[in-house]
């Protein structure tokens, strides 16, 4: 009994509330006769394609920048790299790999510049990051129109510029998901996706335990202390910003292949928020985070969202209402999570 109590304490109240909410939704699934296995399959995919985006919060928080609300910067790098991979018709796993490699190059440059900027605005990184993300997304709206892409598959059939939504069917739609996929009963297990997520989480976990990772943690949690020990906190912050941007770029590619589309223009605008909300629900704060927080948080948050969708449409079958309901749930959770930011438990 005492053990359970301690375990619950360790888990924390916000997670208990969220888990309780998830339980209610699952009960609703049962009552409303929604096909359970389909929901479960979707749930696994959703968690998988979002986890790397959430993981991008880890280096930024540990290096002292806080939540990376500038995640759209990384996402733009990933999208740009994705477009290049499509332009040259890389398909299958090769396509995903190429996109990732190209995005890493962009991300390093962008992340470095972003880090320099953040070092100039210490104390208001989150606000500046948010608006930095917004501005770049808007700027890129012009860029998507004028960049010299020629592949007809990704351009508007008439006029100039790239399409709003690009279906990946001819390139690498669900390539990772379907790699070594098998079924347990009706439930599809996307082995490739799960393995990819595991690799990224594992690498970040190793990073946290490396010398660089520990120095970064020190610089993030007490810049004065690290200065005393001869560590340049600003440099650690730049490294954190680069890593975060790189993960953001890779994250959106994994997201897009699992989703089946690249979405350009204003689509990346709000993408930082679900990632931030996920890690906050997982127990991270603006100054503290672990890989465990990321995994747990993404699991809970994305599960709720993917279960809430069919429940909402079963309750409100007519038209738009279910979509409204779903948006309310998703933003409600984000709001709840943000209210927990920076609060030690």
């Amino acid at each position, binding site marked *: 009994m005492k053990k359970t109590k301690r375990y619950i304490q360790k888990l924390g109240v916000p997670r208990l509330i969220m888990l309780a909410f998830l339980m209610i939704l699952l009960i609703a699934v049962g009552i409303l006769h929604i096909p359970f296995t389909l929901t479960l399959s979707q749930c696994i995919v959703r968690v998988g394609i979002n986890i790397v985006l959430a993981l991008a919060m880890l280096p930024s928080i540990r290096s002292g920048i806080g939540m990376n609300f500038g995640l759209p910067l990384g996402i733009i790098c990933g999208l740009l790299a994705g477009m290049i991979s499509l332009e040259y018709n890389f398909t299958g796993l090769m396509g995903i790999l190429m996109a990732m490699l190209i995005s890493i190059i962009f991300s390093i440059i962008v992340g470095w510049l972003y880090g320099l900027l953040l070092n100039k605005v210490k104390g208001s990184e989150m606000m500046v990051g948010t608006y930095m993300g917004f501005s770049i997304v808007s700027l890129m709206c012009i860029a998507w129109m004028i960049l010299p892409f020629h592949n007809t598959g990704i351009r508007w059939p008439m006029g100039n510029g790239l399409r709003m939504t690009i279906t990946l069917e001819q390139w690498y739609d669900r390539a990772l998901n379907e790699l070594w996929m098998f079924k347990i009963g009706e439930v599809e297990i996307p082995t490739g996706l799960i393995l990819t997520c595991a690799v990224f989480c594992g690498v970040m976990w190793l990073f946290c335990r490396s010398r660089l990772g520990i120095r970064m943690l*020190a610089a993030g949690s007490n810049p004065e202390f690290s200065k005393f020990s*001869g560590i340049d906190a600003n440099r650690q912050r730049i490294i954190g910003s680069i890593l975060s941007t790189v993960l953001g770029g890779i994250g959106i590619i994994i997201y897009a292949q699992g989703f089946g589309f690249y979405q350009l223009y204003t689509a990346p605008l709000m993408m930082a928020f679900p990632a931030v909300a996920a890690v906050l629900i997982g127990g991270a704060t603006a100054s503290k985070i672990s890989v465990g927080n990321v995994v747990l948080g993404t699991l809970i948050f994305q599960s709720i969202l993917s279960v809430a969708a069919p429940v909402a449409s079963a309750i409100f079958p007519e038209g738009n209402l279910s979509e409204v309901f779903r948006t309310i749930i998703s933003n409600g959770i984000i709001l709840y999570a943000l209210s927990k930011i920076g609060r030690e438990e």
Partner: protein
Amino acid sequence: MDDKSEPLQIIKKAICTALVINMRKEERAMEGQPVLWFQQIKKKFGENVVLDGVDFKVMPGEIVSLVGENGAGKSTLMNILFGMSVIRQTGGYEGTIYMDGNPLNITNPNDAIHQGIGMVHQEFMLIPGFTVEQNIKLNREPLKKNIFSRVFGHSFETIDWDAENRDAKKALKRIGIDVNPGERIEQLPVGLKQFVEISREIDKENLKVLIFDEPTAVLTETEAEKLLKCIKSFSESGIAVIFISHRLDEVMRISDKVVVLRDGILVENAAVTSLTKEKIAELMVGRKLTERTEEYPDRNIKEEDIILEFRNVSVDMPGEDLRGFSLKVRRGEIIGIGGLAGHGKMAVSNAVSGMYPSTGEVLYNGKPLDVSKTGEALRHEIAFVSEDRKGVGLLLDQSILTNIIFNNLSLKGEFLKSYGFFTQIDNKAAKKTAEQMIEDLAIRCTSAEQLAGSLSGGNQQKVCMARALIAEPKLLFVSEPTRGIDIGAKRLILDYLLKINYEKGITVVMLSSELNELREVCDRIAIVAGGRLRGILGPKESNVKYALMMSGDESVRGGEDSYEKD
């Protein structure tokens, strides 16, 4: 009534009031009516009993000193008196507090203020952007009616600035400090802020009890002196004072009565005349204070064997400027750097660590040391225990383990396993070392995984020491090693310094504001005053010599060491 008689009337009235007050005071004293009576106060935090049947009285005009080690229950008692919400949230308390014979029912700090209880806090409760007078009269501003207030009520009345200024001036004058009431708080030096806070309290008209929580901790000695005089004068005017301090000298000097708490139990409640400083210290710790637990035989320190030399070093450190500092530190000795706060002694270790920019030369083993970069000294077997424990000394939200091994891991690549191009922390080795240090230094914690921020001050200091020591330094700087920690832990840390100095031959440079502890531990003590080295004294030199040198008096020279004057 005509003009002439008015002043007369006022004087008459004043005399009458004074007489009445005086009579009342005498009456009370005769009846033995205490202004404040803590009757059998008990308080638990969960299972933890922090106050157990504390019972004492405070008479009008009496100065009662409340002493005890950190965690003895002093703050809890004051929190109860002030109706702080933390008390209610943790289940309230047992027992009753009587004021002038009536049971007090205080549910929030505002009630306490209305009842005439004032408090001068250790950390200033002042608004930096407001002026002195605004701070003094905050929430008690003299008001004037205006057209809006007639309609919308009391909150819309205008502030009577003239009256406010007048009141503030009066309050400041009463405690005898000279400061312009229009000055903004942020522009005042630390010492004066403390006095502004006192002025605010005594400006309250019905003030009966004034509590001072470690008021002299941030003051220089002359300021502290002034403050003590001030406190005396309040008590003479009939205000009861509860004085909380770690400085037993002050306690002895000003109190009428001393109340000693130990682990939540009242262990002594007696007139100060029946006590001595040593007796109080002993009651606080509950065990006899020994001088040194162990005497070490003489070490072989050679005058010409110099481990570290400062040559004309000037340091640009705000509040602690140091100019033209030259000193030779001998291998194997414990040298103290003493002086008053703000006179530049802190700059000595900060110059070597590179935290503040400096000019001049620092030679380590005869070779110049690059002090323009932080971390450089650490690579040269020099270690530091910083005076700013919470700021630069610790990673508060990381584990004790991380704190202890961090420098070795970061600078020397120890406690790491290497796998080709990447490294991983060697938790097993780190844990072993950390646990060894926890045992050696008797750090009180649940495990090596406990967060450093959750430890008490003394144990945090020990963690800082542990980190410095596992770097196996040849030279150790310790700054204010016993600041803000209780007597038991103090003893342990000082003994440990002596031990490592003797057993491991580590040269120690100890910077401290507490002259007594320097004199107890050090072989030589360099005194810094006014940003300059004034001389070097042996630990047995007379108090007068120390006192004069610390005040920057030119007539005293300490002398065996050469030091240049410019």
